[in-house]
């Protein structure tokens, strides 16, 4: 299992900052596990394109700076959304995605101004 160490904060869990992003579902899966090394809790995270066909937003300059993304390094920017599973439905948080600099091992959870992206976007599992 491939694992990337990450430093960053999840909203509501600000006391922790050491995480590992694991491809616990295999390298081809849209899902990853974001495991907090400080507390032992984990988050299921998913590529937003698993939930919606189109997902676009502006990345603020502050976020680019905070993630140490240089102009040439934008290819190392990954976007993942926290998801929770309830029975056969996956609820994906499209409103506040995680921006990840996979090269530098940094991430942050941003809040998008777009009211059209819900905090809990339902996706049926196995359809």
């Amino acid at each position, binding site marked *: 299992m491939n694992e990337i160490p990450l430093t960053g904060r999840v*909203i*509501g869990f600000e006391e922790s900052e050491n995480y590992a992003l694991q491809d616990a*579902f295999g390298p081809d899966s849209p899902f990853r596990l974001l495991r907090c090394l400080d507390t032992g809790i*984990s*988050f299921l995270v998913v590529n937003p394109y698993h939930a919606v066909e189109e997902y676009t937003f502006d990345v603020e300059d502050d976020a680019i700076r905070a993630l140490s993304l240089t102009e040439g390094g934008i290819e190392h920017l990954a976007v993942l959304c926290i*998801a929770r*599973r309830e029975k056969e439905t996956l609820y994906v*948080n499209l409103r506040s995605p995680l921006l990840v600099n996979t090269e530098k091992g940094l991430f942050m959870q941003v809040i998008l*101004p777009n009211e059209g992206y819900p*905090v809990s976007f339902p996706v049926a599992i196995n359809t």
Partner: protein
Amino acid sequence: MLVLSRKTHQSILIRGKGGDIRVVALEAEKGRLRLGIEAPAGYTIIREELLGEIRDANRQSALEGTDAIRKVLGGNDE
């Protein structure tokens, strides 16, 4: 908290090193206030409840213990 009274279309400025934030009172009707806000780059303007919603969603999404993780892992085997 600073409390100010403003008539509609009047505004207030919050001045800072990064630039001014301008809040305009657009309309007040039946207990609802419509505000217009202009802020420099670097500020995200959100409803305060939204932060609470995101915090709650994150807490509900947190998987504690290996059983919860195994359940999610197992559930996505296809």
